[in-house]
């Protein structure tokens, strides 16, 4: 028991600081890499400004166009389900809100625990489905790299250990909670160096896309 308690305290203390530092510096570097490169001046006479179309695409690209939905329904639906499930569990679970409050002072209402538990279970099933899809769909198999499987494993571990900890399915409790925190920290550390970066850069990518098409008079 005392060993697992020490482990938990380590994940909450020194390891937490290390993870946050690597995450913050790594992400800053990543974003700086993008903006330092910038864009060359565009001399072609625009049909419209870039800002609004760029911002619009940041939002609209969240929803697939009807044709794409018809051709890739699994991708779209399962992708939505697990992303939303992950966000609900991350942002609307009481202990997570408390953690965010202790770090930032910001707080908001939580969802009841049984609902969080159910959402987490659905998220786990959806994540397993994405893995099977990745390993079986010809396109996904062809373009997948070790990184894709590594990132999947870490994300799955975060959700799974959270689920196990919440439902007290592993003893002692400090051990499973520590595992949950540690896997979340690993995810934070990997974030700036893997495709997890998309959590932040997709807004930049969508803006560039919407801006480029928008200045040519096309809503992308």
């Amino acid at each position, binding site marked *: 028991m005392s060993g697992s308690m020490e482990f938990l305290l380590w994940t909450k203390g020194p390891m937490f600081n290390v993870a946050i530092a690597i995450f913050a510096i790594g992400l800053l570097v990543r974003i700086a890499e993008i903006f330092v490169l910038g864009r060359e001046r565009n001399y072609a006479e625009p049909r419209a400004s870039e800002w609004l179309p760029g911002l619009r695409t940041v939002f609209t690209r969240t929803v*697939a166009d009807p044709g794409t939905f018809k051709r890739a329904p699994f991708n779209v639906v399962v992708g939505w389900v697990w992303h939303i499930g992950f966000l609900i569990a991350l942002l609307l679970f009481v202990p997570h809100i408390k953690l965010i409050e202790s770090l930032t002072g910001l707080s908001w209402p939580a969802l009841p625990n049984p609902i969080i538990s159910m959402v987490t279970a659905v998220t786990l099933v959806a994540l397993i489905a994405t893995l099977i899809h990745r390993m079986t769909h010809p396109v996904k198999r062809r373009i997948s790299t070790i990184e894709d499987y590594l990132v999947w494993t870490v994300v799955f571990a975060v959700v799974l250990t959270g689920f196990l900890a919440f439902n007290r399915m592993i003893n002692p409790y400090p051990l499973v909670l520590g595992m949950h925190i540690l896997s979340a920290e690993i995810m934070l550390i990997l974030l700036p160096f893997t495709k997890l970066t998309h959590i932040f850069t997709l807004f930049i990518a969508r803006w560039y896309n919407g801006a480029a098409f928008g200045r040519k008079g096309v809503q992308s």
Partner: protein
Amino acid sequence: MSELTLERGLAAFRAEVDGPVAAFFSSCVHCGICAQACPFYVETGDPKYTPILKLEPLRRVWENDFTLWGRIKGLIGLQQKVTDQMLAEWEELLYDSCTMCGRCSMVCPVGNDLALMIRKSREGMVQSGHAPEGLIAASVRAIQTGSPMGLQWKTLAVQIKHVEDSSGLAIPVDKDGAEYLVLLSSMEVINFPEYLEAITRIFAHAGVSWTLSTDCFEATNAGIQIGNKDVAAELVERVVAAAEKLRVSKVISPECGHAFTAIRWEGPNLIGRSYPFKVFHIIEVLDELRAAGRIQTEGMETDRLSMHDPCNLARKSGVIQQQRNLMNLVAENFVDLKEHGKLQWCCGAGGGVSSNERAEPLKMAAFKHKKAQIEEVNAERMVTMCATCRTQLEEGLEEFNMDIPVVGLTEMIAEHLVEKPRPASPADAQA
């Protein structure tokens, strides 16, 4: 040209990496949805045609040379290098199986502009000596003769004479101070001479001041297709020089898709300055004339017509409503393809694919998607406004034994002009 090497290729790839490219590669999650937007993947089912995979050389250059993580990987020997062998393998992916139609750019959930990155990648391919023969030949002809098909002014002069004889109208050549400089595409001159007669009649009807230039009549830009900025800039400079010499205020790009994006969007950046004139696609000009009441038509087409939007015109240039306004002017039974406008499907021939003989089987495979779309709406005739699309539609429909003629929109409008145009006067406008 000095020797093309891997080193030069890598330098060209590096020169193409900018903020958007870094944001795009940082954001890709390998979801594979881009494949579902690509006619080459959808119709062949071969996963190697997944758009994001086509960009692997550029992605490696970006990761290795433009990211902290890539440099750390380099220190411990984990970088994935771009090799000559890799680029040789990727030549088919970057040229034969991509028309830069941009549909994947519209569909990518994280917003990656994949078509833009294909365009950029081709710069590296040219410099490393991995561009297709057909496109190299077209570029050389374009630089040496002014036309990618080797067409010379004297051939066009013969056609001008024909049109003048059959229409009884004069075609203005090198007319200083005209409002519009009209550009043509060689393919149009050779395959669709009706276009020149059509604009001659429409402009006479509408009282438009225009001219051709003996210095430069070619609008197409082989440099954009192959991916060589020097060639592309030289071809743009010729248009700009001709327009400046004749002091026109507007330049008209013909019924060709890439020619329009080349001169309208890439051109000013290739030469590093804004133009002293405006650039329009012929369809934009016709729709403006229609809106101003300067085109009077009579009679309507009665058969079931549908329309193919050229990618370069619709998705990549925002000309979507204009062609529909014009269709409604002369067609009473017009039906749009299900996915059209900014989400249209490419005919399979653009972006240099049609100049690359080796790509012929893939080009026909990609066409099957267009074919299915046409069948879906039971079109009796197809209308389009790009000579490359039109040729591809004609060849493709013939290949599948489908008796569906293809017409150019400009000609169709010309066929419906009222015989004796009333002079447009303020009194008419008020009435």
